[in-house]
């Protein structure tokens, strides 16, 4: 019977990450299609809350409490915990699904080495068609590929917003487990945790992104971007040029060397749409650009291009949105 394992990622406050709930719903769908089972695994110093929340989306969640995780980087000991659960459950060929965020990708790499399973990363869709079929973008989204594992199992990381999380009619059960004592890999100490002012919601999960490029002209110009994002209920993004200029933190960068996003709306202000940026946002459902240059590359893939001064059009847009919401 095909097994689908979901690695639940706890947030800093102990709750389950939104992305993990999406992955859980995906795993439930796959298990139903394959006639298999979907099971969650949460490894943390105190996994109870995250495991309980994940059980709203999966019939069974294994909660591994490993007190030694406190004060240490999560992904490596968590991968060891997941590998131990797989071994204890006798699983040699199941599919492990997890979120394609920074922690998920770290854990996937460690787990791949520990279990010898293959990895398909950054899936945009996963289906069961007699075997697992994983859709991914290649070469910055210039191609879409469908791939599979040559054995029956593997590790798949899944991008945010590919699936809408849906709780089960009846919540699943949580099975507490103690961690195996024999951690083989070195643990890395977290000696300090720093919260930075103005840290924004993760842009990979945002449904609406208002983004600024070189045309914004400076850090002050991002005020307009922030205000528009606030008015639309969205997050703030940026191009590498804006980040390299120090106008906005790297965490907001979208593109080749930044994040890949797939929001419902991408509003691009002063962004030319060079290939390095395009690869990070081209799969947005609706792309609207405000740009002075009608011949900018973004004119070729935006749904709507407003030719004009981004500050004038941006302010007019804020007024129009306010009038509409009355």
């Amino acid at each position, binding site marked *: 019977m095909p097994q689908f394992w979901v690695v639940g990622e706890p947030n800093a406050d102990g709750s389950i990450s939104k992305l993990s709930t999406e992955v859980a719903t995906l795993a439930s769908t796959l298990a139903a299609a394959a006639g298999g089972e979907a099971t969650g695994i949460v490894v943390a110093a105190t996994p109870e809350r995250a495991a309980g929340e994940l059980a709203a989306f999966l019939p069974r969640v294994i909660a591994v409490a490993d007190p030694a995780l406190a004060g240490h980087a999560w992904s490596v000991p968590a991968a060891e915990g997941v590998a131990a659960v797989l071994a204890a459950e006798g699983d040699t060929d199941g599919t492990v699904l997890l979120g394609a965020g920074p922690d998920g990708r770290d854990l996937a790499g460690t787990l791949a080495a520990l279990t010898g399973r293959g*990895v398909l990363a950054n899936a945009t869709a996963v289906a069961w068609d007699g075997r697992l079929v994983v859709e991914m973008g290649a070469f910055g989204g210039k191609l879409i590929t469908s791939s599979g594992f040559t054995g029956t199992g593997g590790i798949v990381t899944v991008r945010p917003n590919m699936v809408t999380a849906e709780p089960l009619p009846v919540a699943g059960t949580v099975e507490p487990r103690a961690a195996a004592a024999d951690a083989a890999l070195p643990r890395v100490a977290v000696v300090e945790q720093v919260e930075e002012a103005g840290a924004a919601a993760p842009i990979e999960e945002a449904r609406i992104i208002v983004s600024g490029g070189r045309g914004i002209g400076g850090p002050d110009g991002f005020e307009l971007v922030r205000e528009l994002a606030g008015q639309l209920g969205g997050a703030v993004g940026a191009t590498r040029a804006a980040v390299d200029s120090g106008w906005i933190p790297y965490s907001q960068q979208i593109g080749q060397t930044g994040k890949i996003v797939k929001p419902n709306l991408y509003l691009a202000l002063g962004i030319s749409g060079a290939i390095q940026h395009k690869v990070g946002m081209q799969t947005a459902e609706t792309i609207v650009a405000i740009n002075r240059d009608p011949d900018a590359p973004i004119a070729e893939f935006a749904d709507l291009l407003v*030719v004009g001064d981004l500050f004038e059009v941006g*302010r007019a847009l804020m007024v*129009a949105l306010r009038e*509409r919401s009355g």
Partner: protein
Amino acid sequence: MHIVVLTKPVPDPAAAAERLGPDMRLDRAASPAVVNGNDEYALEAALKLVEAHGGEVTLLTMAPPSGADTMRKALAMGATRGVLVTDPALAGSCVRSTDEVLAAALRELTFDLVFSGFDTSDGTAGVVGAAIAARLGLPYLSNAARIEPDPAAGRVRVRRITPTGYDVLEAPMPALVVCTQVLGEPRYPSLKGIMSARSKEIASRSLADLGLDGGTVGGAAATTEVLDSRKPPPRGATTVVRGTAEEGAAAIVTLLASRRLI
């Protein structure tokens, strides 16, 4: 301080000519190769540390023989030497083979730190660094915004970017660090660097040299396979609005409302 930087030749994203051949593998003839952009940030970070602490930077690449040409570009930035793992059996390698082969090559090298880029522009998986660290039992420090080795104490501190700020991680060396672009813009090779790169050593290693068997790693042992590839569906036509700012704003509001985005 000895730092090994993992570098990969990738099809130049700017050329936008990437395609797969009939065997579902990258058609390397179709697209010019460049050093993976995120690897250049890792190399720049390594060069700065070696300039500050003394020592050497070794590049480690797994690629076809033409990978040596791309490696020269990274040597021109200032790396000391290169190691190119190349073997016909490696064509079509999956992530698992890549990390197993690179780990085997690292076992032959002496280092305090191994740097990898955040991900590659062609595969974008970004998992090979973690897998290598696990295979070698090295401390793994990822998403580095700052790297501060203390050679005397034999330890390294790394600022790891988190969703809300950063964590300061500390581990004994040797360790593997995944670099980000926050570490600083890569330098352009100087003319002197380009000239001296021509005579720098690139050691070539085959699977047999590393004690590996082409039946257990590489294309023959791939854990994943590409079943099908296609171009993304074309986006619809672009509506272009010129006029006053208010007319532009009105067009945006109309579109967003029609698509239930506001």
